[in-house]
Structure formats: structure tokens, C-alpha cells
């Protein structure tokens, strides 16, 4: 399996409140709320760290889960969020861009 890289879409607005990440699409105003693990993925999605590294370093180290299962679920989530233009997914590192809607 080739490596996947994920990056937060700078065109969304995001805020964390009491550990709950809320994200609003600048395209259609849809509001998303991420749970704890999805929030970890979102916060680690810097475009430079591969998805398997994120899962290994940030997920498997904290949760009792099989790495392969966690990676598959993480990839499914990343692609779902990418389809909603919340995340960007690429097989190459994603260059850093100005985070106009960066999370706070």
C-alpha cells in the first residue's frame, strides 16, 4: 500500500471546545463535529506526516487497536472528510499553505 498524506483544508474554520473539534465548511456552511480519535487525525494532518505514521505514533500508542485496522479506518475517514473538502488527501506530501481557516 502506498503512503497517504493528509492535510487540513485551509478553507475551513475549526475550533476546539472542551476537547470537541468543530469544523465548518467555508463552501456550504456545513458543521462537522469530530470525536476524539478523528480530532487526533485532524490535528496531526500537517501534509508532511504520512497517515500510517500518524496512526502508529498518535493512535496506536494511545488506544488498544490493531494497527492495520486503525490504518484502514483512518484512511476511510480521511477520504470521507476529503470528499467533503475538509481534508486533503494525496499520495505525495502536501505543501504547507497559509491556514486562512486554521484551527484555534
Amino acid at each position, binding site marked *: 500500500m502506498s503512503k497517504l498524506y493528509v492535510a487540513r483544508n485551509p478553507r475551513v*474554520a475549526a475550533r476546539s471546545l472542551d476537547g470537541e473539534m468543530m469544523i465548518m465548511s467555508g463552501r456550504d456552511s456545513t458543521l*462537522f463535529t469530530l*470525536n476524539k480519535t478523528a480530532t487526533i487525525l485532524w490535528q496531526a494532518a500537517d501534509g508532511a506526516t504520512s497517515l500510517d505514521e500518524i496512526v502508529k505514533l498518535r493512535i496506536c500508542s494511545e488506544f488498544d487497536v490493531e494497527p492495520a485496522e486503525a490504518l484502514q479506518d483512518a484512511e476511510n475517514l480521511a477520504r470521507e472528510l476529503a470528499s467533503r473538502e475538509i481534508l486533503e488527501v494525496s499520495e505525495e506530501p502536501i505543501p504547507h499553505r497559509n491556514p486562512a481557516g486554521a484551527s*484555534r
Partner: protein
Amino acid sequence: MWLWAYTVFARVQKGKHRSDFPLSHLVTEVAHLSLVIEIGGMPVRVNTFDPAFLELLERRYSGFVNDSGDAEIEFDVELTPPNPADRDADVEVKYRFGRWSLSRGDFRAEWEPSARRGWIRQSANPYAIDAVLRIVHTLVLARQGGFLLHSASAIRNGKAFLFAGVSEAGKTTISRVAPPDVTLLTDEISYVRKSADGYLAFGTPFTGELGKLGENVSAPISTLYLLAKGHENRIEPITPGEATRSLLANLLFFAEDEALIQATFHSAFDFVSRVPVAKLTFVPDARVWELIA
């Protein structure tokens, strides 16, 4: 799926060019065909050459017509023949080349913020211009940290209270049963403006089923209540996340504009960090007001 989850909440009648027309008559005529509607402290001048339409506006915005003459924005209204256009059609609000373009089934409008001018093309009805005003106010407020909220609001003892909720949640009911010492700001759409110390609520002419215009006054917002009808009157705390989601769900915003959407999103968080938000379950009678002071 293991552990991973996300939730989607998700002008011009052509002037009569008559050299023998007395100037004083002209001045009088122009003055009668323009009025300033001031909502939330923002005066908007509306120009029309149709006396009947002007009278319609004066009645519609009674209490919100400012005679001082100064305006921050000016619109020329061109009246078109009546048509059965759909007022329930989707609103389109887009910003291109320095101009906002607003349209719905029953109107088209443009507004150029830098020039502080615009035009509205509609038939002689109050609904289209009402929609234009709401949209323009949301656009202006978004840049200032404020917003329009789908909620009733009222002032009691110098403090403003907001009552948010979807249709049938009780906005009109709680407004209707308010005791005499309560000043009603609106039973449908609240006007929220950021201030140095917090947030202010202003009265609006935007009415719901009550059909009564709000008083054109303002006060600091004390509490935002999320309404629910029930079998007893009680106030319950809610989490900041639930408060923010509910606030966002009740915001009025129309523009397809990423920067303003993001600004409004952050304004909601700021509001929740400064203004208490609680759930208000109530029996639909006046006793609920014993909890609100």
C-alpha cells in the same frame, strides 16, 4: 468503523423634465420619496419614485424610520410589475468584483459596499425588501462580530434575553405571554451586535406569527435560552459545545463567501464564551417569566 466518527450537523421613475416646474415642488417631491430605515443602529436609505410603495414601507417599518436623514447604505428601488415569483425560492448571495449580488425568485439586488450604494428590483411588496435588508444586515454584522439569530428577544430590568429555537419551539409563545414590564424586541429574528463589554440585542421589525414589530431599543444580552416546550418550567445548563452547535444552527446567514462564513463561525464561539447559554423548558403560559429576570 472503529472509534472514528464525525457528525454532520449540519430609481427611477423618469423625472418630469419641465422647465416651468417649480423647484420647491421638486424638492418636496424628492423628500417624500425617500426614507431611512434604521435597524440595529444602522441607517439604510431607500429611494423610490412610487408614493404608494413609500407609504407601504413607512407602515411596514413603523418605529424604525429615522428622520435624521443620514444613512450608511443607500438603495434605489426599481419597481417591476407584480409576478407570482416564488418567495420560498433559494436566496443567492455572491460577492464579485467588489459588489454583492442578491437574488431570490421575487427580487434582484446589487450592493457595492465601497460606494455604500445599491439597487433593488422588485414588485411593490414588503417581503422582497425585507429579505434584502436581512441579508445586508447579516453581511455587515459578520464583519463586525455580530449576527442575526433565529430567536425571540426581549428586555427586562435593563437586560436582554434571547430565546432561540426552530419553528414551533415557542419563540412566539414566550413573546405572547410576556408580562407588561417586558419590552419585546422581536418574536422571530434577533439582532446581535458585539460591544466592548459583550453583546447587545436590538429590536427588529422582523416578525413571526405574533405579527407585532419589536421596540426599536437595545440592551446588553444577559442570557441566551434554547427553547423547548415541556410540562414544567426549568432552566438547565448545557455544555459549551452544545451551546455553540445550537447557536450556529440558529444563525441566519446567506452568503456563499468563505471569509464571512469563517468570521461568523468564530463569532459564535466568542459569543458562547461571553454570554451564558442554557436550555429553557417551559409550559406555554406566563409563569415561565418568573424564571427570567
